[in-house]
């Protein structure tokens, strides 16, 4: 047995009374793709921060190539050859992609060379990245691609990836796996954090399972099944989704020939977008991020009220020019893709964040009934199994998945007539995702109209009664879920439906 590239021994990290990592051991061999599996709050992110030097452990040691290593700062980690793709992206909004990457490289290179190297690296790995675009116009998915390219450009010896496939088309995931295998074959070890069990089975050579901050199992994925992995991770198998036949009601939300020019020159203009969502059904919109999802969601939620009044109708009533609050009063609720900043105010408590979309705790003259507000927030925490210190916890202190459960819970709790959801389970683990899916289906069965915009096909197949695909600001015709296949949707993601925008350059990672 060769010397392990990375070995962690007895790593412990406490935050106050909470033990994030408890006596954790982890061994990664050279060229190994090692999965770290665990629920939200199981301590995966903290452990990765310890490896990357962003967090100092209270106890334990790190061995690099068999030698004890001091990883006190990210700088130390990078000097050893550790690169990381962050879950909460660490990009500078006002700078271009190339400038961002430039700052991440330790060697002295000219900016022009960086631009070229990004193009080359992106092409090599089938990642669609334009080095000259400023980061603030990029969607979450595009930002992640930038992070991946940046990490690869440093020629790392250990690459840490945190939920890297969440925002890729199936074809692009295959391509990414190919390249990750290629990277691993060249000797670089990979720490792969994911909650997608089938991906771990397909890709990884070894797997460490965390639960409640402790290592509960170390296994060879080749010997496991999704069911057995799931049992190790949450102690139970995920509940099966119960799907009943849809009972279609009248049209609740309709969009007719919606066209919107972009806000700034890097946005995606919407062209001729038409769709209908009936009461009692879930309609899904698939597509690679950055193809107009942000713009469509802004138009539907009321954040962007520039549409023709009649282009968007809620129960027949024109609402194209109505603001978000007005739409909410009429029964349309919205879960944005961006949790911190759009879905919640990071520095405010969960209870206070309730007030963003819910006014039940408001009394005459705008007084807040604090007790009622806390009760309301506690109710959502309990019903949707959110792990948080309580309604007084600051939104920023929750893990991504838990905050997502809270935000989805807040909107579901309002019993909306129409719910528009973006990326309902992005970065959420299996157990929590199954909960959110079950709740969305329950809402549909109760007669609400639900529109789900997601980049995860599996999720859309599990939920939607009908599917659209968005590509280059245009929307495909609807496809009954029964007729939808991964191959067909994958092709449509590149705009290849009859009358679609064809194969835009902007969407790489489609079928080659």
């Amino acid at each position, binding site marked *: 047995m060769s010397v392990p590239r990375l070995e962690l021994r007895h790593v412990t990290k406490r935050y106050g009374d909470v033990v994030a990592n408890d006596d954790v051991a982890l061994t990664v061999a050279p060229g190994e793709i090692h999965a770290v599996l665990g629920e939200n709050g199981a301590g995966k992110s903290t452990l990765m921060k310890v490896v990357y030097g962003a*967090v100092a452990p209270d106890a334990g040691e790190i061995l690099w190539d068999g030698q004890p290593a001091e990883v006190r700062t*990210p700088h130390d980690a990078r000097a050893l050859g550790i690169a990381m793709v962050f879950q909460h992206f*660490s*990009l500078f909004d*006002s*700078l271009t992609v190339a400038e961002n990457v430039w*700052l991440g490289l330790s060697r002295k290179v000219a*900016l022009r060379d960086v631009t070229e190297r990004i193009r080359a690296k992106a092409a090599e790995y089938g990642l669609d990245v334009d080095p000259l675009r400023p980061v603030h116009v990029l969607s979450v998915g595009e930002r992640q691609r930038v992070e991946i390219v940046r990490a690869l450009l440093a020629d790392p010896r250990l690459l840490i990836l945190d939920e890297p496939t969440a925002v890729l088309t199936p074809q692009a995931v295959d391509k990414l796996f190919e390249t990750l295998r290629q990277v691993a074959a060249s000797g670089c070890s990979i720490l792969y954090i994911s909650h997608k069990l089938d991906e771990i089975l397909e890709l990884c050579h070894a797997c460490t399972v965390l639960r409640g901050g402790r290592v509960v199992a170390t296994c060879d994925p080749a010997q496991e099944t999704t069911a057995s992995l799931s049992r190790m991770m949450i102690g139970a198998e995920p509940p099966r989704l119960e799907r009943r036949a849809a009972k279609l009601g009248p049209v609740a939300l309709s969009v007719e020939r919606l066209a919107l020019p972009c806000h700034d020159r890097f946005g995606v203009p919407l062209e001729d977008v038409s769709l209908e969502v009936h009461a009692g059904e879930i309609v899904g919109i698939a597509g690679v991020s950055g193809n107009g999802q942000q713009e469509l969601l802004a138009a539907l939620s009321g954040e962007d009220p520039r549409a023709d009044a009649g282009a968007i109708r809620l129960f027949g009533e024109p609402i194209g020019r109505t603001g978000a609050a007005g739409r909410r009063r009429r029964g349309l609720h919205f879960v944005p893709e961006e949790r911190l900043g759009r879905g919640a105010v990071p520095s405010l408590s969960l209870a206070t964040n309730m007030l963003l979309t819910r006014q039940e705790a408001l009394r005459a003259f705008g007084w807040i009934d604090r007790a009622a507000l806390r009760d309301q927030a506690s109710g959502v925490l309990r019903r949707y199994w959110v792990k948080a210190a309580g309604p007084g916890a600051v939104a920023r202190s929750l893990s991504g998945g838990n905050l997502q459960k809270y935000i989805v819970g807040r909107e579901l709790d309002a019993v909306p007539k129409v719910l528009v959801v973006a990326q309902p389970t992005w970065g959420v683990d299996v157990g929590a995702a199954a909960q959110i899916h079950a709740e969305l289906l329950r809402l549909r069965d109760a007669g609400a109209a639900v529109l789900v915009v997601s980049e995860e096909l599996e999720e859309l197949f599990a939920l939607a009664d009908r599917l659209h695909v968005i590509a280059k600001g245009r929307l495909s015709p609807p496809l009954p879920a029964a007729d939808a296949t991964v191959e067909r949707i994958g092709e449509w993601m590149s705009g290849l439906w009859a009358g679609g925008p064809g194969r835009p350059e902007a969407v790489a990672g489609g079928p080659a």
Partner: protein
Amino acid sequence: MNELALLIAATLAAGTPLAIAGLGLLLNERAGVVNLGAEGMLLVSAVAGFAAAHDGGSEWLGFLAGAAGGAAVAAVFGWLVVWLNTNQYATGLAVSLFGSGFSAFVGIGYVGKQLGEQPPHRVPFLADLPFVGPALFRHHPVVYLAIALVAAAAYFLYRTRAGLLLRAIGESPQSAHALGYGVRRIRFAAVVTGGALCGIAGAYLSVVYTPLWVEGMVAGRGWIALALTVFATWRPARILLGAYLFGGVTMLQLHLQARGVHVPSQFMAMLPYVSTIAVLALISRNPLWIRLNMPASLGKPFFPGA
């Protein structure tokens, strides 16, 4: 014609200290630190510069002392704000008040003193050209230095990696820290550099522009320089433009008063300040412009590892 040339010349002279001070403040704001102590730094450096020039007998000694004084006050401010995480606004105001009191106290002995006569400045050959000669080429070297500094700062911010890093830190210190950069060290360096530039501006006021020391002689120019950074949406070339605009309006109103225009002088004296407010209001009409240029972490403390 000749009058216009003199007006232009006066404008450049009046705009120069604003441009240099504004540029210094722009650099530390780009790193995410807003220094409301500008007025105090200008006053301390003005008295330091005057004292050094008077006692040492050399203008350049004055500028050196001014830069050192500004940098010293900025270093105290930076130590408090960057390392001890005190509130930037409160600390800045305190520095401002400290500076005016301290400079008045230290400067008592220099009130009414005069500096030795300086020979007039002339750019060879060009100074003799009609009109443009008196307008543009008979200035103190520091007037030209201001322009060179602005060009250098623009090059630094947009063409060098160090400048990019400075902007990145102002944008998101957390991300820069995650990439392994010493955020506090760089912020502190930016604050001290900004202080040194303010110091040069202060020395210019007391050594060249006025040239004498009077208590409170900076007369709000520190605040105007702070407003200039917003006016310029944190871009160096616009600092220069704003400084000359402000200097021009100041000179124009003096000029009009001298010509006996029938408007109460109080209203005329308001003109530069009113124009500052008007321009700030106009700039705020374009939110995207502000969003793209304003350092996102401006005024916020940074705790590494938090």
